[in-house]
């Protein structure tokens, strides 16, 4: 029994310890936003790596999400539920939830792990120490450009995902169901509101910031050679995924809850 408590106690301690260190990094990152001269030149390259290189996988995910949404919902339509409502289902499902969350989850692996591995390698080979001895602030030099790029590019990727997802959902609907294009978009438009735009944008904005920050945190704190770098990459991916689901819930609750 005491063992159980000791284990839980340790876990608790570790959790808050990491939370504290993460808060510290967050604060340093915020302070370094003033070093515009240093990071501005580096943001472009990161936007390219985080954004453009993630586009193919984003399109792939969204395309399948759209088709699956249509196919799985299609059997629920009968004489009581008019078929044109498939437009409504696809529009809400893809835009409000799947575009941001699926993209976020996959990119937590792709972007998060690669940032953590890259910065982790720099940490264990003392490149981050070297930057510091050369009178550079490693936070402004390495973390800020990645966080800014992630925060800006995730909403863009999510817009792509939403667009592609609704398109494949629509194409599947008109090919396997008894609806026309006009009916599909009538269903989609009838219930659309500005939250269908605000929700995915708010989510992806925060996901981008969270994934890159978490990955930078684990990268910066990795130790002990190649194994440590591998650990950092795994932790970055897992923590980001957990964080995405939590933020997804939080934002939905904040924006949709009627006070």
């Amino acid at each position, binding site marked *: 029994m005491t063992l159980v408590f000791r284990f839980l106690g340790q876990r608790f301690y570790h959790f808050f310890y990491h939370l504290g260190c993460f808060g510290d990094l967050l604060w340093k990152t915020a302070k370094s936003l003033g070093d515009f001269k*240093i990071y501005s030149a580096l943001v472009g390259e990161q936007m390219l790596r985080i954004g453009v290189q993630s586009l193919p996988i984003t399109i792939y995910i969204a395309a399948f999400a759209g088709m699956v949404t249509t196919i799985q919902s299609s059997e629920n339509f009968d004489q009581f539920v008019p078929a044109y409502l498939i437009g409504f289902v696809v529009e809400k499902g893809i835009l409000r939830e799947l575009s941001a969350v699926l993209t976020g989850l996959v990119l937590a692996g792709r972007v998060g792990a690669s940032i953590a591995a890259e910065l982790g390698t*720099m940490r264990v*080979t*003392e*490149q981050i*120490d*070297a*930057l*510091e*001895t*050369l*009178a*550079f*602030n490693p936070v402004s030099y390495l973390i800020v450009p990645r966080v800014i790029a992630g925060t800006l590019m995730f909403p863009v990727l999510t817009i792509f995902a939403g667009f592609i997802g609704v398109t494949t959902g629509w194409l599947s609907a008109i090919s396997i169901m008894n609806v026309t294009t006009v009916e599909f978009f009538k269903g989609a438009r009838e219930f659309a509101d500005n939250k269908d735009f605000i929700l995915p944008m708010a989510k992806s904005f925060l996901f981008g910031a969270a994934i890159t920050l978490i990955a930078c945190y684990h990268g910066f704190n990795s130790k002990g050679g190649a194994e440590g770098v591998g650990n950092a990459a795994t932790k970055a991916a897992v923590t980001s995924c957990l964080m995405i689901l939590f933020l997804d819930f939080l934002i939905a609750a904040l924006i949709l809850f009627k006070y």
Partner: protein
Amino acid sequence: MIEIKQLFKRFEGNEVLRGVDLTIGKGHTTAIIGSSGSGKSVLLKHIIGLLKPEAGCVFLDGVCVTDLNYEQLKDVRKKMAMVFQGAALFDSMTIAENVGIGLYSHTRMSREQIARRVTECLDWVGLHKIEKLSPAELSGGMQKRVAIARAIAMEPEILLYDEPTTGLDPIRANSINDLIVHLQNKLDVTSIVVTHDMNSVERIADFVAFLHNGRIRFEGTVQELRESEDVILRNFVEGVDEVETLAA
């Protein structure tokens, strides 16, 4: 002048430095020797402010480096440069960018001036026409030389070397030793060299400090080191395992 006073550092219960006292004079080469894991790198990182001690201070010309805030530390660091054990070159950059990185950000030099300075520094360490290569294309010895070129590019007053000859074959190790001596004479800097290579100490050092069990056990000239009667120091210098002597 660098004065280290009662420096303590521990990592999660592992007491690495337990009251280090050491004075390092200007314009000389001081070697810090000690077995692997004795805390030589940790000591070096305190001198340049990469690590903060639990207690004690590193004074640089009377100023306590370990108490400085980030901005003040930045100015101190411009006077110092460190050559890391694994070279620690930025592998996303070319050799020229590696050597010139400080010049780009901390000086008002033009691109041409920087390019000229980079070539000059590479010249001093005996490397030619490698500006456009990436670090991965160089051998370990060449990477060390580039790291030294990067360190001297900003004309520091103090040069810190962390095991500059470790991992190199004897011929390349000796050429790095010669390079350290050559730069010392040419640039008139204060050099601190961490090493466990006694051959290197003989070739480059004016003064030697022996780090043992978290304290400086011996401090003196190379001549004094040779004449020292301390058994533990003798064993280290002659490469004898302590356990063997106890058994004998």
